[in-house]
């Protein structure tokens, strides 16, 4: 059985695509067969973050409209044999995705032996976001410790609880967890930023990962190498922890306390 994970947030720019790419890579690195799908029709970006933008020939909409087979459209990752990317279409047609079409693609992937299908949701609560979450078993809600992101996440949680197949069919519910990005432990300590506990309490959910604010994230996207591949970076390690937890491992949170480096260490990069 394939596990369908939606990476969603409501608000834009919080790190959905970065997270989708890293989770997919991390799962593949653990030997799982993974497909990661970009649901942001019209604003394709997962391909850039994954570093396969020049190898996109067919996309998700081509498959749904029968212009290409799923096999033709899946882009095989160059780093992991078991990782495949399905790019979003650049069409401006908002109705290019259909519920039936998405369901068929997901079913075909499951039949093809994929262990995980990661659905990278667009921002907002329009059709693309709705379809990305509709068939999910599990949701990773990406949130910045910041008021507008937290509020939008709550809207998304409301939709996950009502507008998904699981919610409609009384098959149980979509299991949701939080993934905090751009977390700054030192600003939390000085009372300038919402803490993990604050966000958990407001949203009533548990956290599956905390990714610290890091310059490595931009460097990774510049290069088209998901930041999880950079295991020297805190952000990469934090994503790897999140993947482990996603697979049921119990790991303590790291990088959630301020750096206690002294002035001279900072000065000399020690």
């Amino acid at each position, binding site marked *: 059985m394939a596990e369908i994970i939606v990476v969603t947030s409501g608000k834009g720019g919080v790190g959905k695509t970065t997270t989708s790419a890293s989770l997919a890579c991390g799962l593949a690195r653990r030997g799982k067969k993974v497909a990661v799908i970009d649901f942001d029709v019209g604003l394709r970006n997962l391909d850039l973050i994954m570093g396969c933008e020049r190898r996109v020939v067919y996309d998700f909409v081509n498959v749904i409209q029968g212009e290409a087979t799923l096999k033709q459209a899946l882009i095989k990752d160059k780093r992991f044999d078991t990782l495949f990317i399905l790019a979003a279409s650049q069409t401006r047609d908002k109705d290019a995705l259909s519920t039936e079409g998405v369901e068929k693609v997901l079913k075909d992937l499951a039949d093809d032996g994929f262990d995980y299908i990661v659905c990278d949701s667009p921002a907002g609560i329009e059709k693309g976001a709705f379809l990305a979450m509709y068939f999910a078993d599990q949701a990773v809600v990406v949130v910045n410790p*910041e*008021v507008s992101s*937290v*509020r939008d996440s*709550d*809207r998304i949680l*409301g939709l996950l609880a009502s507008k998904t197949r699981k919610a409609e069919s009384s098959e149980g519910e979509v299991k949701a967890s939080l993934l905090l990005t751009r977390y700054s432990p030192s600003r*939390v300590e*000085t*009372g*300038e*930023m*919402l*803490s993990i506990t*604050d966000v958990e*309490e*407001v*949203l009533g959910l548990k956290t599956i990962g905390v990714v610290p604010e890091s310059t490595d994230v931009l460097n990774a996207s510049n290069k088209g190498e998901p930041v999880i591949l950079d295991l020297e970076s805190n952000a990469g390690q934090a994503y790897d922890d999140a993947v482990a937890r996603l697979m049921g491992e119990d790991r303590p949170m790291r990088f959630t306390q301020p750096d206690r480096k002294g002035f001279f260490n900072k000065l000399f990069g020690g």
Partner: protein
Amino acid sequence: MGMFDFLRAKKNTASIAKDRLRIIIAQERSNLGGPDYLPLLRRELLEVIRKYVSVDADAVKVDVVKDGEHDVLDISVALPERA
């Protein structure tokens, strides 16, 4: 205000954020359960009522409550005290 207050840490804005979020999210969750037209209905009712009585913006409460098999539209209007 003490002389050295400026030396203290900046105001704890995170706790302000948390309080604001708690309130707005609780409010939005209670609206969300009901039909989409509730906020608009509330606003229009308020406008009509204000033609006759001067009431506060939060004087009109509109909720859908369950009564056995039925959904009941529960509207309550708090009138101002007579001067």
